[in-house]
């Protein structure tokens, strides 16, 4: 399983590299772009994910202690939290669509070429830099999109795991499946732990 996660690290690695490079190049655009992130949603989502990681860990623990009820309870909680995450993410995406921030499909620089009312101290971006916010949003959608895809896959597997757990599997000592799924889930959590500051936070203030 760890080997598979290595694969995943490298999978995200490509995008993180791109993010880093363009951030260096188009710093102001990245700052401006991240000002449009909904910070409460991001924070909430981080919390949701961390909770789900915790419930997942507890689920694995319940499997270890062969406690079927607890296992079911924790897995279901994890599932709900996962779905919650996706819901909030969907809300955010919808918001970005409304603001014409989706590169390629629905994008306009107008939000960036005028002074942002919420950040009156910041100057508006000149046109050339405003164009570059597209790069920011491209990466934003890719990173969060691929992450959400992983969540989606995770949720589907989780359904399957819960079904089996309900039938009494995993609590008889054969718990590799739960364990490995746990690893996967935590990994997806870790990715978000990095995405959150990179996309939402670190440019809050400049």
């Amino acid at each position, binding site marked *: 399983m760890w*080997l598979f996660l290595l*694969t995943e690290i490298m*999978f995200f*690695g*490509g995008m993180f590299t*791109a993010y880093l490079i363009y951030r260096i190049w188009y710093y102001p655009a990245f700052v401006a772009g991240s000002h449009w992130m909904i910070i409460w949603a991001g924070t909430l989502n981080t919390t949701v994910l961390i909770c789900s990681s915790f419930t997942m860990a507890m689920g694995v623990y319940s499997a270890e202690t062969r406690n079927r009820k607890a296992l079911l309870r924790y897995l279901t909680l994890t599932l709900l939290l996962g779905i919650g995450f996706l819901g909030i993410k969907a809300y955010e995406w919808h918001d970005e669509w409304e603001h014409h921030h989706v590169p390629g499909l629905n994008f306009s620089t107008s939000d960036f070429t005028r002074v942002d009312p919420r950040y009156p101290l910041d100057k508006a971006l000149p046109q050339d830099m405003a164009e*570059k916010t597209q790069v920011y949003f*491209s990466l934003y959608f890719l990173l969060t999109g691929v992450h959400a895809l992983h969540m989606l896959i995770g949720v589907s597997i989780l359904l399957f795991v819960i079904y089996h757990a309900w039938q009494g599997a995993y609590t008889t000592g054969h718990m590799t499946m739960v364990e490995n799924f746990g690893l996967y889930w935590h990994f997806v959590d870790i990715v978000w732990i990095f995405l959150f500051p990179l996309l939402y936070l670190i440019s809050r203030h400049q």
Partner: protein
Amino acid sequence: MSTSTAIVLPPQETASLPKRSFLNNEYGLKSWLLTLDHKRIAILYLFTTVFFFTIGGTAAALIRLNLLTPGGELVAADTYNKLFSIHGIIMVFFFLVPIAPAVLGNFCIPLMIGAKDVAFPRLNLLSWYLFVTGGCFELYAIICGGMDTGWTFTTPLSTHYVNTNVVGAALGIFVAGFSSILTGLNFIVTIHRLRAPGMTWFRMPLFIWSYYATSIIFVLATPVIAISLVLLVMERAIGIGVFDPTKGGDPLLFQHLFWFYSHPAVYVMILPGMGVISEVVACFSRKRVFGYTAVAFSSVAIAVFSFFVWAHHMFIMGISNYSALVFSLMTMLVAVPSAIKIFNWSATMYKGSITFDTPMLYTFSFIGLFTIGGLTGVMLASLGMDIHLTETYFIVAHFHYVMVGGMVSAFMAGLHFWWPKITGRMYPEALGRLAASVLFIGFNLTFFPQFIVGYLGMPRRYHSYPPEFQVLNVLSTAGASILAIGYVLPMLYLTWSLKYGKIAGSNPWRAPGLEWQVQSPPLTENFPETPVVDFEAYDFEWLANQTKNEVQTVG
């Protein structure tokens, strides 16, 4: 001939194939398509990859025919572009990358380490299906218009300027990539967990070492091409701006990501071959491989260093001069382990007792051709020289020397070497030697002129070229037709041998590996009882004792 050969066939009048083996365990299409047996999966892979090879080879034949005349009268320019793109993509992603790991690796690894199967048989079957799915995408892309990006998918050409089926092709590679990842994963876990008792790391055949290195590359590098293809498809389909210079993206970034995979991938294409060569050289010299540890560690070294050199494909592409320096230096370093291996194989023959059966002949051509290919690689790695040589036929010659002269030769060596194990029958030896020689001659005739024409400056991917290059191109095309015979011949006689070949017996080469201690073709469960390994790899003295109390076939 009989004195100079190591083949000990059982007396042919009385010999028979074992009654029970993985081949006749079950019958019917379903028993093949749903099999979990690594040996059957290997054979499935063999069929699919050979199928793709014929497609890629047909494209190659058309390329060479078109280049017979400077004007390129055979096909139109865009057809030509599609041809070499198809050729490159099929040959790399659907033939050479999967062929060695998935065919020989699947068949041999469990047998060699004394395991019943790979660690995750289901996953193994799944990778085959993924591979086939990827292949179908690719075929679909080829049939519905083809793609003319070259196998490197250079942006922004591939994202904005061609209107062929790039998305289909990229998706095909993407899916097939997952097949590689799963195979790599499977092998690593297999090698770690399923070794027979007593099979310590340094008792493993070198074949296993090099497959281990290959698998590492699979797992760590393949996802990067997956993500770069995703980015490419997104950019092409909905126009995000990551690689598009007009939106502020850097087209070079795509190449960074692409080569981060594709350079390690070229070692995926050669390391398994190196593993095969180690086995064959040892067996036919009847000697332990010279410097076992050096060879083992050089495999791992190649795998590790291969991650540091990717930008040598981009020396003139506009990367900074400083970083070109770094990457050139690293490339020089990665070339050294290959040199170590070559010398060790040669030294293995010293004071051996050498026979020249077909696998050994292919091994010779591997050693010679790979050395030439590798050394021209060093020329390309030298910054100043690369300026003149890059993007010319010199490169084409370089990588065909390493890929075709190197890896395909090694694969042929391996295929002939294990053929009796796989099918229980011998291939016709005389025809085998003939085909090996034909291949060697045809190969050199095809690709050596390309070195010269490349130094003269003929650019690659050219549908037509200035007339003064014609002579060399004619030679090359002539060579290619000989080469085609060299490939068709083994296909024919190997098929023939399935029914009419001599019965091989369990160990015709008197080779020491574990896989040779069981009947051929092996049982579905490989070993009737778990073997205990109390001998070193390539331990011919052990083998000599062993053969005294003859190996038995079960069933």
